[in-house]
């Protein structure tokens, strides 16, 4: 990983800031990491956290004033840049409802930007071959963007301890009902962040959320903005600031292990670089039970997979008996199999199923 990606800036922001103060803080945070690089021919996608429509002052959703400040900064460098706000439907609300209720419709008119509902856009399927996601449906227009900026909220999460930049990309899964991915969040977030790979990460910590996040917690005047390039590095810093050990966040621990990150190489800059807040959390027993519940779904799904493979084996045995009884079999994978090749065919089939079971359980 190059050194630039290991830089994170943390700046203080006054309590109850106005638009100018927010913009000034954001500019300061961006200057610290030495990156502001926008061009007229850029197509920039910004992903805020619109969650379940609770306003930003409740600690739930990205403060729209940060988005506005970001747009103004971008347009200062490149007047004609195309800017898109992207979000998907959520089980509690659609992206369009989020845009309407949180002021994005007016923002879009004011600054001539586009509001994109990923769930409703024309999609293509890309072959990801990730740790969990083998393929993912993405809006075709996302292939045209030149920069992707993830703007997350600083919040606790009752199942994962923290939700910040890495988790913000969960909202790029186009389907509305995403709960099936929850038991596999470590692998899913790892895959999503490899696919979407933000160019810039901004954390809205003006008012964060503590307690029973990500929706039902309590607002906390955290008074900071965090900027970075790498989603994992940014989340590690955010986590520490919240008073949560990064390795206590399951998907951060998972990603650190997979990417071999050395936390000592992270460079934190800014006037709040050493800030330490103490976000409260839900009782440990509640958190543990939430984790256990997810684990149980994983075990259930693995068991189902084994039965699926056993079902394939049973079906194969049926084919084998047909092969012996009528002397030949037209197999979808092997074409014509004659009885005198039955032994090779059977051995191969059993070997395939065995390896499928082994690889899936591993």
């Amino acid at each position, binding site marked *: 990983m190059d050194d630039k990606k290991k830089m994170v800036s943390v700046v203080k922001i006054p309590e109850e800031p106005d638009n100018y103060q927010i913009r000034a803080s954001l500019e300061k945070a961006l200057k610290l990491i030495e990156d502001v690089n926008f061009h007229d021919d850029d197509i920039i996608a910004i992903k805020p956290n619109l969650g379940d429509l609770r306003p930003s002052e409740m600690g739930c959703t990205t403060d729209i004033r940060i988005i506005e400040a970001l747009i103004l900064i971008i347009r200062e460098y490149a007047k004609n840049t195309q800017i898109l706000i992207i979000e998907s439907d959520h089980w509690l609300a659609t992206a369009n409802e989020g845009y309407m209720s949180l002021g994005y419709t007016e923002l879009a008119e004011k600054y001539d930007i586009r509001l994109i509902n990923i769930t409703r856009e024309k999609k293509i399927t*890309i*072959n990801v071959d990730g740790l969990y996601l083998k393929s993912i449906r993405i809006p075709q227009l996302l292939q045209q963007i030149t920069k992707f900026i993830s703007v997350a909220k600083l919040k606790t999460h009752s199942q994962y301890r923290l939700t910040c930049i890495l988790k913000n990309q969960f909202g790029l899964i186009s389907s509305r009902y995403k709960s099936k991915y929850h038991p596999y969040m470590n692998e899913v977030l790892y895959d999503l962040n490899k696919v979407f790979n933000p160019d810039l990460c901004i954390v809205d910590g003006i008012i964060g959320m503590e307690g029973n996040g990500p929706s039902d917690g309590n607002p906390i005047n955290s008074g900071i903005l965090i900027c970075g390039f790498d989603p994992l590095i940014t989340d590690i810093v955010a986590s520490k600031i919240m008073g949560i050990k990064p390795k206590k966040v399951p998907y951060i621990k998972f990603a650190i292990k997979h990417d071999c990150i050395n936390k000592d190489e992270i460079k934190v800059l800014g006037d709040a670089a050493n800030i330490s807040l103490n976000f409260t959390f839900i009782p440990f027993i509640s958190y543990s039970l939430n984790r256990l519940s997810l684990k149980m779904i994983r075990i259930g799904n693995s068991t189902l997979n084994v039965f699926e493979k056993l079902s394939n084996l049973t079906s194969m045995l049926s084919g084998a008996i047909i092969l012996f009884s009528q002397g030949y079999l037209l197999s979808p*994978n092997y074409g*014509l199999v004659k009885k005198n090749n039955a032994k090779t065919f059977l051995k191969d089939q059993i070997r395939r199923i065995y390896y499928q079971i082994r690889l899936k359980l591993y």
Partner: protein
Amino acid sequence: MRTLKLGIIGCGSAVEYLHLPALQRIPKIKVKALVDKYQDRAKNLSQRYNLNAITTSDYSELLKDDAIDAILIATPPDTHAQIAIDGAKAGKHIFCEKPMSTSLEDAEKIIHTVSEENVKFMMGFNFRYSPEIIRIKKMVDSGFVGKPMMMSLYFLSNISNWPSVTKFQFNKKKGGGVLFDTGSHPIDLARWIFNDIQKVYCTLSTSCLNSSVDDTAALLLETKKGEKINIFLSWCSKDLNRISIIGTEGILETETGLNHVLAMKKGVRMGQFRIMIPTRTQLPTYQLELSNFANIVLNNEIPLVTGKDGLESLKVILAAYQSYETSKPVIL
């Protein structure tokens, strides 16, 4: 419903396991006659598939039968020309399995005769009906890959799985060898998707068979527009038919039976990930091509695959053998 009355000449394994199961599923084709050197084989098939067909060991009897509209030629390749010419002169429309024949002269005679006798002639290049390959062709034609530059084709199989009765595949004079037997398909696809072939270089070997014919071949072709194609053929592998197309703006890849095409576009975000473009699951290609043949005859449609395609494919095969023998590229 009007039906096409078909006579099949050559009742080997291809007819037994591929053509007849397909024909049974096409109501507009009725198999009325089966011809084989060994008449018992023809009789067995007629009983097994419940065809109630006339069986004979002499195809000229079939050609005299006015009730037969068309013939399907599935004999060893060295016999295709004579049967096709006789069939055309008898006014029968012709479906000919690949390769067209074993000599250019014979192939040209077939084309000349079918034209003179005004009968329909279609080659059995069934891969042109594969939904994955049809999708790739459409995408290349629509410019997805930009200017096409290169194509790579793998056509592999395990010959020991194929229950050949006469074993003509292992007799070079009869049109045996992997290049004659399997090479027709990828060569035809290369011409169909790109352009006519101008230059041919080939190496052959016998890798796994206890035989004198080639079972492994590698071809390097160049089209008239400078596109490069490499083709790998083998009888010593598992079944796999794979195609990749590389152009100035993108790459396409697929395998037959995959039900999707993988595409990569240059210069887009997330371009390192292949886009999966699903293709419609369709009927088996043998069923599609024979159904198409029925439409060509019954409705006077234009064949997708003609005698010229068979001839051009054969030219490349013969040039490939020549290249192997001289160790030099051959210019067509």
